[in-house]
């Protein structure tokens, strides 16, 4: 058991170090950063903000991780967020119950995932192009539902999901924690994780070994759609309205970055949900840090880009080989060790 814990820690070490470094850097520019207090029965502080604000990207990153593990990519998640937010808002305002609204919204997310999955798995279209279709059209669909306006609602139950708190933590944090753990358990306690990794590494060999690849591929995109739906609900609930234009805009890129920062290769295969979650939190920490630092906003992108480039270069296979001592055992890429013939 301890060895499993140790390998798990070893896997997450680079992300933990990067997160610690980012947090340390922020607390140097802003001294009250690490303060946590209880206010109105909930934890209150910048750290909590990071967890809370990171919720959409964390959720998207969870689904994106699984999609990327299959050697795919899902560019449509931002648009699906917008669609699902719009669906949730329009259902709740037209008088449906919270349960119905949530069910329908999640179903719409799943439907979007099935569409992407069919394009990729059945029609065999390259994932990046297949999901581009929904990325382009999806926001239009969301606007079609809201007719371009911000569709506001006042249903306390739905609002609670966005800004309520439970056990001292904001609801979005609870949601992604629970969902993340559920997905992690789902993929690791069942054989799903291994089968998905097998598909990502070698689809042909997996199919020949009897893995039901089309179904699993579709399932990966469905999971991604589901994650986007939850993220969309949270984003809408957070501002008590569905903003079809801005909800999830460009978040697909943040989610992909989160997965890559989390150390999952864009070429598919080995993945770690936890590492991607940390990747998303790192990205959110950078965003929040920039806001707290008081730098003028025109520097936001440059700071973000610089930090991300730095983290990615540290993770690149070549860099890892050149500075092997920095890498952790068990995960170090070994291009030097040639395949013996």
């Amino acid at each position, binding site marked *: 058991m301890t060895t499993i814990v140790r390998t798990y820690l070893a896997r997450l070490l680079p992300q933990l170090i990067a997160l610690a470094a980012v947090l340390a850097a922020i607390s140097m520019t802003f001294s009250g950063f690490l303060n946590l207090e209880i206010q109105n029965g909930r934890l209150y502080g*910048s750290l909590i903000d990071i967890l809370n604000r990171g919720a959409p990207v964390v959720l998207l990153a969870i689904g994106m991780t699984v999609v990327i593990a299959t050697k795919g990519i899902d560019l449509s998640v931002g648009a699906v967020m917008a669609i699902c937010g719009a669906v949730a808002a329009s259902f709740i305002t037209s008088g449906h119950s919270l349960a119905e609204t949530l069910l329908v919204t999640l179903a719409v997310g799943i439907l979007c995932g099935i569409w992407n999955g069919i394009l990729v798995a059945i029609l065999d279209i390259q994932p990046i192009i297949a999901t581009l279709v929904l990325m382009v059209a999806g926001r239009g669909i969301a606007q079609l539902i809201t007719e*371009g*306006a911000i569709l506001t609602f006042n249903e306390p139950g739905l609002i609670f999901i966005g800004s309520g708190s439970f056990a001292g933590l904001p609801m979005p944090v609870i949601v992604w924690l629970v969902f993340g753990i559920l997905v992690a358990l789902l993929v690791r306690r069942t054989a799903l994780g291994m089968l998905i990794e097998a598909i990502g590494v070698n689809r042909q060999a997996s199919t020949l070994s009897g893995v039901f690849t089309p179904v699993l591929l579709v399932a990966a995109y469905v999971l991604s759609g589901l994650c986007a739906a939850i993220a969309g609900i949270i984003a809408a609930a957070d*501002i008590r309205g569905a903003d079809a234009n801005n909800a999830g805009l460009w978040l697909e890129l943040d989610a992909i970055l989160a997965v890559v920062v989390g150390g999952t290769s864009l070429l598919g295969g080995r993945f770690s949900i936890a590492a991607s979650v940390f990747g998303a939190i790192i990205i959110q920490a950078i965003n929040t840090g920039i806001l707290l630092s008081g730098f003028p906003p025109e520097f*936001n992108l440059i700071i973000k880009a610089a930090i991300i480039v730095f983290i990615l270069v540290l993770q690149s296979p070549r860099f890892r080989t050149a500075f092997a001592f920095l890498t952790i055992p068990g995960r170090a890429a070994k291009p030097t060790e040639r395949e013996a013939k």
Partner: protein
Amino acid sequence: MKFAKALASATILAACTFGSASAAELVVGFSQIGSESGWRAAETTLTKQQAEQRGIDLKFADAQQKQENQIKAIRSFIAQGVNAILVAPVVATGWDEVLQEAKDAEIPVILLDRTVDASDDLYLTAVTSDLVHEGNVAGKWLADTVAGKPCNVVELQGTTGSSPAIDRKKGFEQALSGHDNLKIIRSQTGDFTRTKGKEVMESFLKAEGGGKNICALYAHNDDMAVGAIQAIKEAGLKPGTDILVVSIDAVPDIFQAMAAGEANATVELTPNMAGPAFDALAAYLKDGKEPAKWIQTESKLYTQADDPMKVYEEKKGLGY
């Protein structure tokens, strides 16, 4: 049902079948920026309504927030031979050439809601509010309200680089200059969105001692203010009381907030720019009467004293 109908119309459109091209009446092209905010949607709705009332055939083109698409649309309108063109320019610069083309083709152009950085003989008139003035009104209100007491202000800017963000900041700062008691302590972009407004306000609150150092919030649009109000409430403070909230646009939701005492003031940017524009156009086409180069809409200040719920009811059907 609406879905199905719209789908059918799109199919027809995709097939490029012959449509019933209506003749005789006035054809006006309208190049809208996009549908990036509720205010924008309301402007589109109102423009279409106004056109319908006057029996004008409005050709609507959405530019998806891109200037290049607007230029393309204007050129297409010229090629199509419309009678007049309305443009809501996404950015102030870069219009000389295409406006010159319209002028050469003798098609009058009316600018809506924002002006451009071009010689004023290139367009018939501009129906806009004064963005700097809006900021100024907001600033004045704040200065009058705090009346000499020291006050730390946090500012939620619009999208970095957009002209409302730049001008509303400028106007506000002008109003504040000379009032040493008012100080902008933090200013970040909230991208004109509720989500970002809320997120940025949360950081402001953390960064300024849980909000104790903040006396007022100035947001470049109401949407960000609405987001920020939620953040203030969640931080355990009373928006409108502990932190004064002043913003711009006067969208319906801010009136609800004002009615609840959570927002203090907003400066109206009327979405009905098309009405005055069509009036000026009609006069011009009828007897060649050149309108003034700038038809300024009112930047009306609304406060909690102005029966916010009544305004809300008036505005909520306009597609905000």
